[in-house]
């Protein structure tokens, strides 16, 4: 795309605005709590930050905050990993072989519209309230977008490229490994990105329904005890960890798909 | 119809100076072809002409006044296909006239006229997605002429087309130009195209771009690509550019 008419705003300007609106937001929050009756319902920002800070040392429930986050992360990674090992091959098989697609796609289309979280009651019934039901819920929530993107990646390989590979003497097996797989990597990563954010949401929901520790547990117990400070700090840490996970995955993608990035 | 004057036009992106003190004049109804090596800022030059880029210094006057997109009627045909895929051919052609706030009756008449001019009446209700590259380029030309522009800017509009289509569209443009007497500034890489169509040729240097040479093209229309005088003019321009 041609360069914008006006100069692209420099990095510095965006950073300045970011800090300005961040401090503005905190200021409004602080003033509103201090001078209006909002404080019955809402803690001041400093209380929240103090609580988050102290919870690195003081326990929430039976453990400190980082432990809760780690518990949630463990669940996410088990469920997400499961979704990847099952979802990516399924998607690629559907994308590459017509019979594979004819067999798998109808069943996938049947189960696809059911939201991941709707599986929670059944999961608890099947696997009890322990860890395995959470792994199941996370896997189900993430697998849909992983399958979909792997499928579209594998099925939309540029025919000119497969033609060129054939011309250079590549046999069908080689075409699969050297053409189909590499060219669908960016699309698979798109699926992984969406899958990761759905997993992070699913673990919070699962923990809110029934758990003894974890990020979701923090905000639910906060709700039950009416402790808004705990809820807000729980939400902030959930948000930060979610952001961290997404950017980690983006870093991995930049490493693997260096060939896909424009720029000189 | 309009006379274009450019005095000491200078433009740079950050430290990189792209246009360096360019001054020239285009008479009313003239057909000026601008030729230059790839990447010598021809497109930047055209964009600066119509204030799409803000210029470091220098002034651009049309009929004596500073360029103002609302007052002066200018049309711009670019190399990339600029037809809007969500509008039918008819709506694309009317796009400029609606912005210029032409009367309903005039829009209806003008649309019919320009579509006939480029031979696209049959495709009036098609969407760009259904048309070939040369048809799309014809739609942009029709859209440009519909607003009866004082000044028509064309940035290598036939760069991507097949040889035979390019010949046809060049002849068509000359015919329309003779009919409407619009002032045309036409940018191209292709020296043969410039010598074939222009009444005046301007050769630009490499970056930072200066006007190397600006001279009349006396060859009578219609021109024959193989005539001795044509080949001689073509050699002259090629030696001026020397980009390889």
């Amino acid at each position: 795309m041609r360069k914008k008419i006006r100069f692209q705003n420099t990095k510095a300007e965006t950073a300045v605005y970011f800090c300005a609106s961040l401090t503005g937001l905190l200021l409004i929050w602080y003033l509103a709590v201090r001078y209006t009756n909002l404080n019955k319902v809402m803690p001041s920002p400093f209380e929240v930050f103090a609580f988050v800070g102290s919870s690195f040392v003081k326990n929430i429930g039976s453990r400190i905050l980082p432990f809760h986050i780690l518990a949630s992360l463990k669940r996410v990674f088990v469920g997400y990993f499961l979704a990847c090992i099952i979802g990516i091959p399924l998607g690629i098989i559907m994308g590459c072989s017509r019979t594979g697609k004819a067999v798998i796609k109808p069943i996938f289309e049947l189960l696809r519209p059911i939201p991941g979280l709707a599986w929670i009651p059944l999961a608890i019934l099947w696997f009890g309230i322990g860890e395995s039901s959470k792994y199941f819920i996370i896997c189900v929530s993430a697998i849909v977008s992983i399958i979909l993107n792997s499928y579209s990646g594998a099925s939309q390989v540029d025919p000119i490229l497969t033609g060129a590979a054939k011309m250079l003497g590549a046999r069908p097996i080689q075409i699969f490994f050297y053409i189909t797989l590499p060219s669908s990597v960016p699309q698979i990563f798109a699926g992984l990105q969406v899958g990761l954010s759905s997993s992070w949401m699913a673990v919070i929901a699962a923990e809110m329904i029934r758990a003894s520790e974890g990020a979701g547990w923090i905000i639910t117990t906060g709700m039950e005890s009416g402790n808004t400070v705990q809820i807000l700090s729980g939400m902030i840490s959930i948000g930060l960890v979610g952001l961290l996970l997404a950017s980690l995955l983006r870093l991995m993608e930049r490493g693997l798909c260096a060939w896909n990035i424009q720029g000189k | 119809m309009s006379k274009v004057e450019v005095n000491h036009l200078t433009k740079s992106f950050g430290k990189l100076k792209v246009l360096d003190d360019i001054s020239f004049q285009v008479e009313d109804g003239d057909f000026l072809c601008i030729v230059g090596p790839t990447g010598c800022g021809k497109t930047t030059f055209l964009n600066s002409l119509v204030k799409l880029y803000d210029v470091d210094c220098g002034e651009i006057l049309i009929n004596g006044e500073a360029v103002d997109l609302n007052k002066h009627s200018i049309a711009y045909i670019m190399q990339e296909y600029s037809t809007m895929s969500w509008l039918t051919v008819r709506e694309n052609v009317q796009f400029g006239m609606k912005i210029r706030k032409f009367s309903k009756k005039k829009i209806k008449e003008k649309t019919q006229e320009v579509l006939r001019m480029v031979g696209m009446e049959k495709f009036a209700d098609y969407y760009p997605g259904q048309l070939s590259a040369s048809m799309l380029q014809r739609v942009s030309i029709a859209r440009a002429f519909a607003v009866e522009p004082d000044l028509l800017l064309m940035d290598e509009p036939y760069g991507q087309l097949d040889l035979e289509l390019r010949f046809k569209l060049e002849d068509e443009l000359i015919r329309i130009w003779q009919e409407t007497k619009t002032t045309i500034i036409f940018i191209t890489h292709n020296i043969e195209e410039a010598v074939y169509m222009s009444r005046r040729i301007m050769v630009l240097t490499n970056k930072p771009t200066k006007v190397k040479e600006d001279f009349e093209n006396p060859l009578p229309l219609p021109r024959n690509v193989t005539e001795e005088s044509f080949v001689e003019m073509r050699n002259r321009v090629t030696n001026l550019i020397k980009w390889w």
Partner: protein
Amino acid sequence: MKEKKLKYTLISVASIAAFLSVWYLVTDVFHIFPSSTFPSPVKVAQAFIRKLTVKTPDGGTLATHLAASLKVALYGYLLGIGIGVPLGILMGWFRKVDLIVKPIFDLVRPIPPVGWIPLMILWLGIGMRAKATVIFVSAVTPSIINAYTGIKQTNSVHIWVARTFGAKSLETLIKVGIPSALPMIFAGLKVSLGASWMALVAAEMLASTEGLGYMIQMNRMVGKADNIMVGMITIGLVGAMLTWILEKLENKLVKGGRTK
């Protein structure tokens, strides 16, 4: 080519039939799983019919739950896209709005909609307002992102064409910006719909007295797996139907064969 197509449709039909028959064999014929936790398709069908009229055990027929869910979901969804799409468009077009609003939006965005439920319940109780707010939050984010990206991806050649015809910034936005962003906006509407439907189920499971989410949660308490499945299938079906309606709308509105 014709027989090839027929062959693949046959395989698809066969695979669905196999899926159902395996499910049936595993449950009713070989009793590998107790039917209370894993009912057979037949039992689920019976439960479906029964649930149409019977209120127990969750205090409402399928229709009343569905109506309650739809009301809340559409209320929150329409509010979410009604605010999200225009805000995304303005953020994408005007740099000033982008610089001010985007940072706040980027702060709030990483918190999954489900994370808002406890706060909303504490503030707004377990009534309709809390659930509608949660759904609003889950609908607004994708619509802002897609409208913003759609406008940012407007082809600058089209903007230049409009500008040279003398169109001012606002007129260019309306005549070029929005139409070329439409496919992306509709993609956003679909994502918002999915997110809202998901958030609704979660909100109803956590604190509600009616709705499909509440229904499957209650049935879990009493161990009625067949009702849970009925609830899940209904949620899936209605979700798919809403998406289908959105696609029909898109085909009509997005002209020039450019649907995403």
